[in-house]
């Protein structure tokens, strides 16, 4: 527990500061490209972990500011009190955090194992099938080697990339049956654009961070924003490649309707294909109808520094106060 209690403080305090900063930046600069917004949300999700690792690596003197001020008037008394409350809270929450840590990591590892079983259970699509042909045509246009594709009965209505080094595209059989050719192309371009930027493993990692940090109460909100920006990026890229926003919008609605039919596999594969709410689907469809802005993986030059700036400010606050 000695090793865990500083992390509880890092996680609680770091997530709070990171989330507030991220929310303020996104609110003040609503026109930032999704790639930058995504970077900012990643910071608030990952920084508590990074800060904790760095603190043990560099042996930061925690609470140095409070330490310097301790015994110096009201400010010193306040920091001493803050330090005691933080330490007590850290020790009190450490057992719960230990459970959350074990559960989060176990769930992620189990999802990876299930993904492996899942991909072995259903054979890859033959090269001459409707789906495989479209993947072979699209992937080179996006600078990718065509990944294998499997059609599975579960989870219904879903399409996602699974695996780590060699991602495999998984599409629900019902969804493929429901989609016309242009809709299927749009869905495949969307999934390939996730593969293009490594979202298949980033999503797995993000869900694990979200689950471990669930006790902070903010991680689900941060993850939802992160996912929204990730999907916005993939939608924009798919539209850039196919030029068919309406086909993608129609496919999203069909997928959501089918997705309501069952959730058992959805839960098991949550780390690769997190559940999407109706609100998110509506938001994405509306964006597609209004005209998706041109895709940008980098965005404005100065904007690229924003995630780093949020990370730096959060790190400094953590360094001074934790």
């Amino acid at each position: 527990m000695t090793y865990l209690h500083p992390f509880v403080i890092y996680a609680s305090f770091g997530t709070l500061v990171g989330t507030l900063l991220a929310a303020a930046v996104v609110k003040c600069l609503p026109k930032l490209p999704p790639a930058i917004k995504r970077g900012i949300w990643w910071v608030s999700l990952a920084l508590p972990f990074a800060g904790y690792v760095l603190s043990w690596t560099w042996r930061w003197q925690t609470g140095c500011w409070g330490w310097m001020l301790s015994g110096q008037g009201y400010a010193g008394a306040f920091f001493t009190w803050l330090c005691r409350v933080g330490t007590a809270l850290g020790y009190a929450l450490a057992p719960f955090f230990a459970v959350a840590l074990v559960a989060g990591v176990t769930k992620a590892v189990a999802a990876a194992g299930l993904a492996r079983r899942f991909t072995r259970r259903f054979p890859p699509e033959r090269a001459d099938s409707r789906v495989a042909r479209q993947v072979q045509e699209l992937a080179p246009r996006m600078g990718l080697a065509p990944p294998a594709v499997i059609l599975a009965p579960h989870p219904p209505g879903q399409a996602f990339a699974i695996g780590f080094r060699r991602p495999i595209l998984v599409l629900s059989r019902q969804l493929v049956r429901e989609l016309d050719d242009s809709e299927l192309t749009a869905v495949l371009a969307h999934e390939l654009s996730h593969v293009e930027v490594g979202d298949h493993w980033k999503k797995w990692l993000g869900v694990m961070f979200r689950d471990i940090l669930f006790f902070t109460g903010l991680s689900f909100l941060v993850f939802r924003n992160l996912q929204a920006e990730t999907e916005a990026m993939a939608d924009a890229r798919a539209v850039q490649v196919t030029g068919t926003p309406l086909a993608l919008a129609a496919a999203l609605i069909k997928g959501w309707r089918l997705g309501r039919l069952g959730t058992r596999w959805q839960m098991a594969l949550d780390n690769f294909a997190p559940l999407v709410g109706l609100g998110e689907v509506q938001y994405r469809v509306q964006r597609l109808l209004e005209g998706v802005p041109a895709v940008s993986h980098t965005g404005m030059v100065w904007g690229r520094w924003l995630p780093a700036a949020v990370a730096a400010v959060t790190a400094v606050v953590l360094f001074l106060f934790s």
Partner: protein
Amino acid sequence: MGTEIPFEFRPHGTGLAKVLGELETEVMEVVWQLGGATVRDVHRYLNQKRPLAYTTVMTTMTRLAQKGLLEREQESNYYVYRPALTREEFADRVARTVLDGLLDEFARPVLSHLVERIGAEDEARLRELEELIRRRRAGGQK
């Protein structure tokens, strides 16, 4: 929360007529539009649509002031009436009062119906979007 406004809820009425009388609704709409008005102003405004006695308008406005929906202030020898609440604040107050009253007595069915209703609203919105996509695609857009 603010002071409670006495009203009778008529579920089958439309708009403000769910909680106010027909003339009360018309008067409130005029006062909200003008921001502040005398009885003469409101009478002149409503009289353009249909003939109304000055005293009828005056009685209605006095009743609305007693209910707390209008505030009146004497300026020389006439009263100027102003809305005590904006339209949105009034709608919010009505919704709170009606829902609180229902939840006190029928919490479970009311909540379950609200969840159903929200689901149905979302579903309806999704159908609208679907229809819009279908029409645009039929028009040749991709």
